[in-house]
């Protein structure tokens, strides 16, 4: 089930670009909807995803393939939890931007999405500003270009 949800999300994106994945997406959707109404996933989609992933790994590393095959459900859960947690953080960040103008209202400088804050993260030593480098407002060369 978890594998189907993860696959559904990934395939939803991939289906936008390739017809090949649209068939898979439909299968994942049917599997997930059936599971939500407590019916079994008759397309066998979860085991299909597991087998395809395992087969790809089998060609590269048997141990990894065996591990994935054995703990596929657990691995899917981990991905699911990571996905849900990042979804919650993203939603919280967007809420903060909408309400406070920055995704981290305590520390607006740390939020790259805060309007006016550039995404440059590297240190720019004083006096080392050069032309034709990326614009960088946070490293003390405001208005100029620095490395």
């Amino acid at each position: 089930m978890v594998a189907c949800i993860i696959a559904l999300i990934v395939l939803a994106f991939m289906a936008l670009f390739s017809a090949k994945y649209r068939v898979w997406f439909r299968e994942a959707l049917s599997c997930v909807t059936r599971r939500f109404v407590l019916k079994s996933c008759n397309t066998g989609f979860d085991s299909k995803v597991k087998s395809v992933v395992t087969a790809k790994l089998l060609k590269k590393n048997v141990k990894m393939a065996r591990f994935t095959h054995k703990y596929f459900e657990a691995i899917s859960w981990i991905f699911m939890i990571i996905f849900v947690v990042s979804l919650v953080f993203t939603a919280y960040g967007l809420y903060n931007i909408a309400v406070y103008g920055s995704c981290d209202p305590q520390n607006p400088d740390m939020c790259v999405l805060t309007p006016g804050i550039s995404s440059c993260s590297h240190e720019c030593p004083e006096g080392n500003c050069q032309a034709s480098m990326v614009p960088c407002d946070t490293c003390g060369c405001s208005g100029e270009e620095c490395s």
Partner: protein
Amino acid sequence: MDEKIRSDFPVLNREGKPIIYLDSACQTLRPNQVIDKINEYYKEYPACGGRSLHKLGKMVDEKVIESRKRMQKFIGAKKSEEVIFTKNTTEGINIILNSLSLKSGDAVITTDKEHNSVLLPVQFLAKRKGIEHKITKSNDDGTFNLDKFQELLTPEVKLVSVVHTSNIDGFTNPAKEIVKAAHDNGSLVLLDGAQSVPHKEVDVKKLDVDFLAFSGHKMCGPSGTGILYGKYDLLKNMEPIFVGGETVSNSTYTTSEMENPPERFEPGLQNYAGMVGLAEAARYLQKIGMDKIQRHDVELNKYLTENARDLGLQILGPSDPGLRSGVFSFNIKGLDPHEIAIMLDHTNNIAVRSGMHCVHSWFNENEIKGSVRASMYFYNTKEEIETFISTLKEIIKLR
């Protein structure tokens, strides 16, 4: 078999990673000769058969007659009128079961390994008309138990409908003995030849079988083609289940005069491209030689069984591969059959079938979830079988 034969099959020669096709029990690959014949119809005489008097229409008629004769020879029928073109085995079986005028109190015997294409029409007859359905059980190794079968033969048994070669395990039931016992009882015999006709010589006269149904797509013919054979005198006294254009010679608002077989059983415009394509497939197989094909299938199955011995596979059917035709059905303990099939496909492009192969009843009865089925044909090679075995070895490591 030689490389020359493989070069006839476009799918085996396409660019990129080669395909190892081990799903011929489902549908076989098609050689260029068959594809060209199908195209020939569409390019050269794409018209109606049996009715139009123009040149193209006459050409279609000639080709259909030729094709029917070719199929007659292929199965050793007495007359070409005994050969009915259908769309598959299932249609042929349904025609016979529903045209025989079976009634309440009559009984039909089938084996315990029938494809749904036999089981379901018989079940429906049992429900709708109250016929009795008797099932003869196979031995534990999948072989046929003639004694048990004979015990079921009572005067009520009007029809014995048996699978010739099983699509689960490749075992070929002793058709001649079955026909003899059934005829001694006054029962007719319908043989499901879907898996036998493509792989060995099946001669309806020698077997003395009353009806035989098989599919074109399992013998290098076009998809959605098949043949129903019936002894002429039997067919002549049967009412078709589908009627319409071509099945009658004349009609008024209230009456109609039935055509003779085979037209009686071929309603409406037909799949003419399929007919000529199927006849070409029969010609192609005969040119290779049915004996040679049968020997090749068994040789590959022996090679596979021998070399897969240490893998600990649970093989369905008799342990002697010589009795399993080109079918190698197995399970790996701890792994799901569908997963194995997908992994074979995604690691080395190996196409096999998994599941219950439309014989759910047998799998359910034996409490087996399904199986992986590798089915071989004359275009498969020992090298392909080696790749199949080495891939299985990798997959087994997942347990």
